């Protein structure tokens, strides 16, 4: 299955790097769009279906958690898995991401294979074809 992914980050270079990393990762991508803010992401998400959202946490106006909160309020968006990409790395913050509905998180800086592995895991596209039910496992924090 080819996945349709939305990358949300206020940093244009980071959006570019994340998109290139995803495209080069071998992950099965059908379409890859981006948004420069949480608000823009919501507008795009309300227009078309996505299989996965990767969002930065630290953004002006609407941060990654606020974006997730808005998505959870919408019946059409609440089930789209969201992965938070963040520079912040305290255990408490990571737990907060999961508690508030993120499917996983990636800490910056990240090697390219980390994005590939995380996406494969989240989308259930693991080596053995199975996905662990526990999304908050510490061992998944590459």
């Amino acid at each position, binding site marked *: 299955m080819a996945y349709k992914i939305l990358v949300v980050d*206020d*940093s*244009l*270079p*980071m959006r*570019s*790097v994340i998109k*290139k990393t995803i495209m080069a990762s071998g992950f099965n991508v059908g379409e890859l769009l981006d948004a420069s803010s949480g608000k823009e992401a919501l507008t795009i998400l309300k227009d078309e279906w996505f299989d996965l959202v990767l969002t930065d946490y*630290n*953004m*002006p106006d609407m941060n990654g958690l606020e974006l997730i909160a808005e998505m959870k309020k919408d019946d059409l968006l609440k089930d789209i898995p969201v992965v938070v990409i*963040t*520079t*912040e*790395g*305290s*255990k*408490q*913050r990571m737990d907060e991401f999961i508690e508030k509905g993120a499917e996983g998180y990636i*800490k*910056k*800086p*990240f*090697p390219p294979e980390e994005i590939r592995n995380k996406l494969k895991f989240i989308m259930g596209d693991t080596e053995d074809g199975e996905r662990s039910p526990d999304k908050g496992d510490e061992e998944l924090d590459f």
Partner: protein
Amino acid sequence: MEKEALTKAMKSSISEVLEKMFYLPLDFPESKNEKEIPNLKTDKTIISRIKFSGPFSGYLLLYIPRELAESLTISFMGIDEDNISQDYVTSTVKEIINMITGNAFRNFDDQAVFDLGIPELINFDDMIRENSKSEEEIFISINTMESRMALQAIIY
């Protein structure tokens, strides 16, 4: 705040970010008089600031020569020199300080929660004004193959 531990965490973070994301080899020169960046008062150096708050508060400043910033932007975005824009360069510099700061606090204490502000660019005069408020600071010079940059933590 343990200054030595934070210095170590900042250095580790600088190495991790610049080597992992930018493939930039670097080292940290030991100097008694290291708080000096070439061309600081000119437009040849970009100064980026990010505020933080948590168990202690303040901000980090990244000083980076424009030429090095342009080179890192080209490498980071995988674009040609002809396609580089000022917006790409400043966005890349902001992303660098964002990553270094978050990663430094993670290295320092992964149980503590630090809230980071949005990275911004400041000018030389603003930097001097902000520095005058500092109660404690850490200054790290960074040597790259062909250039020199620096990271400074100002703690209130």
